[in-house]
């Protein structure tokens, strides 16, 4: 099982990360990747970028724990999580998650689970930098509901 977690202020190139991820696989039949990209449209005005704060090492420890959960729940051959901090401009990639497994379902679900964790539990604070000023963004109710699905399915 190969695991890679990276949290840094350096740019993310999703195509390069995916190529590298796939090149190291030997037994997987399904690879899922997700890229989160900074959207140009904000709630009220045009978004120029985001500013992401983290709290080291709490942020890293939390992501590592979520990765451990994913490993114990799904039979994965490999998993990678990259998340940016600092200033990120519109159109740039803020997060990249990839998972690989023998069959597709485990890869889809593990990637979905990790993204829900990153959206609602990972220790980041996110500020939208817009033409009309800066505004801190917190998770939406929908994000919390999405994350809740994994707790429900655990008790079934």
């Amino acid at each position, binding site marked *: 099982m190969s695991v890679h977690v990276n949290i840094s202020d350096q740019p993310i190139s999703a195509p390069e990360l995916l190529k590298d991820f796939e090149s190291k696989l030997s037994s997987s039949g399904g690879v899922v990747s997700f890229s989160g990209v900074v959207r140009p449209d904000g709630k009220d005005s045009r978004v120029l970028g985001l500013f992401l704060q983290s709290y080291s090492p*709490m942020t890293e420890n939390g992501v590592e724990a979520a990765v451990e959960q994913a490993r114990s729940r799904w039979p994965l051959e490999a998993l990678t999580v990259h998340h940016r901090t600092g200033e990120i401009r519109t159109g740039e990639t803020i997060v990249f998650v990839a998972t690989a497994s023998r069959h597709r379902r485990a890869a889809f679900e593990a990637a979905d689970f990790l993204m829900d964790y990153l959206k609602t*539990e990972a220790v980041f604070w996110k500020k939208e930098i817009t033409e009309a000023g800066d505004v*801190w963004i917190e998770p939406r109710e929908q994000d919390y509901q999405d994350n809740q699905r994994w707790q429900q399915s655990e008790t079934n």
Partner: protein
Amino acid sequence: MADILYFGRLSDVTGKPFESVDLPSDISHARNLRSWAEARFQAEGMFLEPTVRIAINGEIVDDAHPLANANEIAFMPPVGGG
């Protein structure tokens, strides 16, 4: 002397992300920190919100947690990345 960190929208209210403070001696538990910060920054209740969590020395604690040996205190509004 304790380092106090104000994350996310809290730094807009405090005007700074961080400060080093000699806390008054009557602040013995995490819950006292809330009212202390609230009064210090006239934060309109922001520090009293239950969704604003407190971490001491890198661990999230509840309001009843004692402050002994608190070198680093963080006020954490709701988190989320991605």
